[in-house]
């Protein structure tokens, strides 16, 4: 009894590999192989046919692909764009004029006088006698006897 071609052996033969598994003079195997080759040829033609499209569709696809990669800036371009933006920002900040100092409104002389009077009233010593007061305090501090330790 013949050992017919296994799936593996038949696949190897169909794929163009040489195999020694094929039994000699097996007409049935030969016929099956030929039959399958014919089927695969029909299938190949079918696969090619179904993948055919009008030329316009291929061109549309080319444009769609090109549009995708044109829309995405490449990394070096992005780096340059960022660097330029920072440069422009720094230049703008450096060349910008500082805000002009607003002149302070002149104080009301009556208010100033009133504040001065209030401060003078709160003082223990009149302003003119402040140096003398400080001197007196220093003399008092120096003349005080040093604290004695408790027995």
């Amino acid at each position, binding site marked *: 009894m013949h050992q017919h*071609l296994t*799936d593996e052996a038949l*696949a190897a033969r169909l*794929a163009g590999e040489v195999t020694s598994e094929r039994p000699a003079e097996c007409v049935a195997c030969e016929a099956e192989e030929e039959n399958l080759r014919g*089927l695969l040829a029909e*299938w190949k033609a*079918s*696969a090619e046919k179904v993948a055919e499209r009008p030329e316009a569709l291929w061109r549309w*696809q*080319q444009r769609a692909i090109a549009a995708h990669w044109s829309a995405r800036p490449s990394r070096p371009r992005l780096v340059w764009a960022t660097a330029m933006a920072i440069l422009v920002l720094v230049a703008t900040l450096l060349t910008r004029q500082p805000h002009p100092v607003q002149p302070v409104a002149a104080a009301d002389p009556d208010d100033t006088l009133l504040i001065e009077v209030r401060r003078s009233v709160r003082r223990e010593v009149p302003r003119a006698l402040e140096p003398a007061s400080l001197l007196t305090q220093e003399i008092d501090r120096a003349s005080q006897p040093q604290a004695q330790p408790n027995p």
Partner: protein
Amino acid sequence: MESTLTPAKLLAAQANASAGIAREDFDGIVRAHQRRIYRVLLGIVRDPDTADTLTQECFLRAYRSRHSFRGESSVATWLVRIAVRLAIDHGRNRRNRFWRQLFGGATTDESAAGSTAVEELPDAGASPERQLAAREQADAVWAAVDQLSPQQRAAFLLRFVEEMKLEEIARAMALEVGTVKAHLSRAVGALRKRLKERGIYAPASDR
């Protein structure tokens, strides 16, 4: 003519790949590979709108990682790798799966399977009987392919539609060659089973 990017320019781009791919080369790369990437994605996700969206996303991801392209594989393999990863990630999205199942999606409804794929199939020169038979056969293969896991489907598609070598598929899917072979083997097994169920052909063991 698909592209203004000549093979010489592509080779030059790959030769200078140590510095990645220049921005100017990318328009040409899109023109040269968009059809293939769309076809691969459509074969895996089985929805034209999703395939379109994922095709755009694939090129955007490639563009963003263009500086890391070192030319260890071809530009095509690199793009297919991104596309397959996107499609598989998309398939993992539970919400999408939920909606697909809710509306009787392709994975469970055999009659719907392959309907989008084969509508425009046979060439005008073939007889109606031949067209019908071809359509039925392709439909059966699509139905079987729809039963596969996204990875198996991707491997099957890359081998039998894109005619990539096993090593290229392994690179594109970030798998070992042995794993790719295992995926193909399971896919062929599923195909045999499905075809037998549909009475499209009889496996050798039944003869």
